[in-house]
């Protein structure tokens, strides 16, 4: 047997002090299997050792929240006895190494988190960040990641209804693949992971265990170096077909009352599922590892415990219900094995053919997991960029066309057309709008879903960036007419061991917390992904927000497409012409500078509530929030989506025209209406800033009566970039 000492512990990523703590918990030299278990449980990925202190500051409560962070996914009440279960999760490192399988297994993992809780997944989203389009790896990564996400979601039959995709050189060596799943369950039939009932059988179901992905969790917690390619064999291969069977089988068994507790085997596989189930229930678990269904001969206890083979679940059943459960899993042609039982020892005891290979007290393993208060440095503040410091373009519509045809603003159609976004026949708003809407099956109500983050704001000013990400997600939900309910978040950062990076993290979390509290938009689940850096180059801080909202009546929603000719275009919110950290500055002037636009959460809330009322009351015929690229980009998107043109007039404000058009002031929306007078009056009553800025109609976009461009020309430029880029060698 392999000897365990300081050196083997270090190879497992445990520091000297962590190893000492482990020795004192065990009171003897640990076995290699025990070391493996400690190392994955204490990895950043499983223990949140660098982030926990800060995550605790986030608001997680609200009358709608049934279950906040801590379980497999968050749960919120959506009325009619139903609950939405949702979470987002990263699969960044595996996707960089093997884009297809990395992204595919990411989707598989997050869907298991959701159906483990008893919910049928109804929608998937994906937030992607790639390196510069010129980087030699980018095209291959985009192609593989998108195919992998589609390959898994399409097969399983859950629609992928939206997401984000951006390019920036900061992700050259470390792409981000964040996948989100939303499911629906009966509110009184949520399944949790706390094991209970000493003597109850512990059951393994799903695929067989192979040698794949051993040490995936520790990999997710280490930064890349030049020989990461050598670590390749740890990549897991997913089988969406088996996951579909597992989903159906689990839901079928969940319709009975045979299950006491259930937990998917995600990162760190059988180890984390066993330890977490025991810990949450305050009980012990004894497993007979030789009963584990294995794919290969001669697998050691260490390998069985650390394998990250996909499409597996661990359950505790009520006594005597094994055969009923077995019949269901056999019907779905899945493995089923009783591999152990719940005990009252408070220990995880693992045996292989009667020999004890691990015997660990659960509470100290979990409670003594290291927590760090890492040193952090605040990000230096930046000066704003005044509109006068930016040269006015000759024709702002040329700049608009250039922006719409740029990698970060062009249409994402090439991506979403590879995703089945309509299966389940409940997609009421397809990708391409502000938020997607899926109908709650069998009703006329719906869930609105979005993901958002503007990393360049987060980099410039983490706290503002964190607030803005939440505000934009909230705004996207409002813009379709939904009531925002709650959010999930995926915090993607560089190494927490570097104070400036930790400072970005602290700032973003603080901004997220402030915005979530102010907007009654609690955090119910999330994921942290650190060490997103290569050879010391960190990614932009990227705290992706996944937002969920409720639509009470699908007939009372709005879309981005202009609804009709000759309607008034109303701008909600205040325009100062804020160009700092804007898309305009970055893409047109190639300047990455300036403070990002401030986020006023009080105004944000007032404007959003007003806009939502205008939509559900039927006054607004279309709606789009103003985000990246500013007002004119929002209007162009509304025009391109409908084929209807618009004529815009800037009011007399003294703001240079280009700043008025491209500034990224927050809390703004564009609405169209047949009755602008009524809308302005209503706005005034609510103290909301609103003004008529133009009229829909024709087939061109015209600004100030001088500059004009055809909607078709804009659309051609907007649609062309991504397919052309991907078709190039």
């Amino acid at each position, binding site marked *: 047997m392999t000897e365990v000492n300081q050196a083997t512990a270090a190879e497992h990523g445990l520091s000297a002090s962590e190893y000492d703590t482990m020795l004192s918990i065990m009171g003897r030299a640990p076995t290699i299997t025990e070391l493996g278990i400690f190392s994955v449980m204490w990895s950043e990925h499983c223990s949140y050792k660098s982030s926990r202190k800060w995550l605790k500051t986030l608001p997680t409560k609200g009358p709608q929240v049934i279950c906040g962070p801590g379980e497999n996914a968050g749960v919120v009440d959506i009325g009619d006895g139903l609950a939405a279960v949702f979470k987002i999760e990263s699969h960044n490192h595996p996707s960089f190494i093997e884009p297809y399988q990395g992204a595919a297994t990411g989707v598989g993992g997050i869907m298991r988190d959701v159906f483990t809780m008893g919910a049928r997944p109804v929608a998937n989203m994906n937030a992607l960040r790639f390196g510069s389009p010129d980087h030699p790896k980018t095209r291959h990564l985009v192609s593989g990641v998108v195919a992998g996400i589609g390959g898994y979601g*399409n097969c399983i*039959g859950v629609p992928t209804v939206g997401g984000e995709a951006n390019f920036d050189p900061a992700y050259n060596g470390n792409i981000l693949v964040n996948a989100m799943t939303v499911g629906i369950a009966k509110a009184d039939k949520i399944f949790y992971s706390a094991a209970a009932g000493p003597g109850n059988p512990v059951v393994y179901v799903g695929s067989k265990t192979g040698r794949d992905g051993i040490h995936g969790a520790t990999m997710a917690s280490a930064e890349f170096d030049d020989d990461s390619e050598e670590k390749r064999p740890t990549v897991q291969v997913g089988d969406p*077909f*088996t996951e*579909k069977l597992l989903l159906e089988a689990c839901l079928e068994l969940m319709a009975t009352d045979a299950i006491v507790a259930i937990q998917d085997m995600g990162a760190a596989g059988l180890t984390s599922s066993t330890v977490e189930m025991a810990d949450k229930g305050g009980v012990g678990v004894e497993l007979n590892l030789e009963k584990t269904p294995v794919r290969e001969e001669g697998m050691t206890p260490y390998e069985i415990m650390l394998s990250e083979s996909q499409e597996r679940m661990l359950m505790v059943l009520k006594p005597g219900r094994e055969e009923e459960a077995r019949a269901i899993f056999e019907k779905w042609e899945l493995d089923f094995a009783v591999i152990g039982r719940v005990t009252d020892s408070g220990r995880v005891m693992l045996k292989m053919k009667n020999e004890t290979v691990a015997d660990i007290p659960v509470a100290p393993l979990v409670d003594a997991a290291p927590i760090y208060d890492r040193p952090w440095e605040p990000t230096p503040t930046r000066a704003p960029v005044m509109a006068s410091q930016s040269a006015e373009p000759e024709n702002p519509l040329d700049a608009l066309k250039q922006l719409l045809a740029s990698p970060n603003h062009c249409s994402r159609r090439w991506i979403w*057309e590879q995703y089945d*976004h309509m299966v*389940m026949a409940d997609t009421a708003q397809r990708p391409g709008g502000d938020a997607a809407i899926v109908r709650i099956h069998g009703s006329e109500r719906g869930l609105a879903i979005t993901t958002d983050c503007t990393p360049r704001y987060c980099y410039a000013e983490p706290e503002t960036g964190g607030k803005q990400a939440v505000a934009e997600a909230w705004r996207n939900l409002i813009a379709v007419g939904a009531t925002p309910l709650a959010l999930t978040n995926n915090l993607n950062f560089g190494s927490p061991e570097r104070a400036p990076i930790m400072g970005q993290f602290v700032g973003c979390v603080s901004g997220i917390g402030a915005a979530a509290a102010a907007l009654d938009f609690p955090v119910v689940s999330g994921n942290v992904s650190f060490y997103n850096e290569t050879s010391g180059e960190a990614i932009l801080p990227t705290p992706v927000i996944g937002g969920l909202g409720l639509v009470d009546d699908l007939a009372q929603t709005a879309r981005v497409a202009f609804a009709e000719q000759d309607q008034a275009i109303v701008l909600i919110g205040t325009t100062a012409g804020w160009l700092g950290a804007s898309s305009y500055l970055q893409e047109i002037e190639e300047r990455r500078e300036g403070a990002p636009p401030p986020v006023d959460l009080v105004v944000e809330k007032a404007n959003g509530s007003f806009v939502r009322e205008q939509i559900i009351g039927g006054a607004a015929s279309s709606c789009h929030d103003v985000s990246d690229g500013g007002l004119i980009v929002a209007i162009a998107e509304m025009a391109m989506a409908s084929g209807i043109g618009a004529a815009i007039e800037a009011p007399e404000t003294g703001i240079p025209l280009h700043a008025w058009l491209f500034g990224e002031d927050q809390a703004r929306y564009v609405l169209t209406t047949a009755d602008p007078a009524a809308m302005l009056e209503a706005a005034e009553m609510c103290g909301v800033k609103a003004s008529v800025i133009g009229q829909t109609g024709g087939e061109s976009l015209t600004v100030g009566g001088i500059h004009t461009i055809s909607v078709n020309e804009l659309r051609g430029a907007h649609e062309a970039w991504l397919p052309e880029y991907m078709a190039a060698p």
Partner: protein
Amino acid sequence: MKSAVIVFPGSNCDRDIAVALERASGTAPAMVWHRETSLPAVDFIVLPGGFSYGDYLRGGAIAARSPVMRDVEAQARAGVPVLGICNGFQILTEIGLLPGILMRNAGLKFICRDVYVSVADNRTAFTAGYAEGQVLRIPVAHNEGNYFADDETLDALESNGRIAFRYTTPDGAVCDAGNPNGSARNIAGIFNENCTVLGLMPHPERVVDPAHGGTDGAGMFTGLVEALAQ
């Protein structure tokens, strides 16, 4: 109309088609598990879309060898109308109820989007709800929808009026611009000799309800209900 929907491991449009059938006929279809060896007495059988057996080996290949397919085949040969959508179409070709095969899309990518198809002939039960030459907007969602058969087979399909739907442009032109996947002669759906078996790649069940953003698929099901009532 009493109908049956066959459910294979990996089917994922079985619920969608059941909803569309119930909406059109007022009666929920019988959901028949692939391991059954005989079907209940029904007027109409559907093989739904999805990824039966993960689409491994070839789309529909393994499902076509399921126990239930022997009875489906027998019923089809006895004249019970059978509809195969997407993966269901692939299964029908694999079992030989329809000629040809669906190969990988010419663009080598999964495609999910609205396409336009024209109705060749409205004298069949499947197309009775449409006008001849009508252009429908219906979504596709597939990786392997590129219809292939040898020229002789294609000629025979054409001359016997067995091409049910062809991909077109929005204004009904049959040309490459309207062909999403490289299918021979823009074929989106075909009949058997008696027009009692239809296989098609587009998903009519995804556009039966205003909430879907289109209702062009509804005519297939309302037409069927009416035709089968006679």
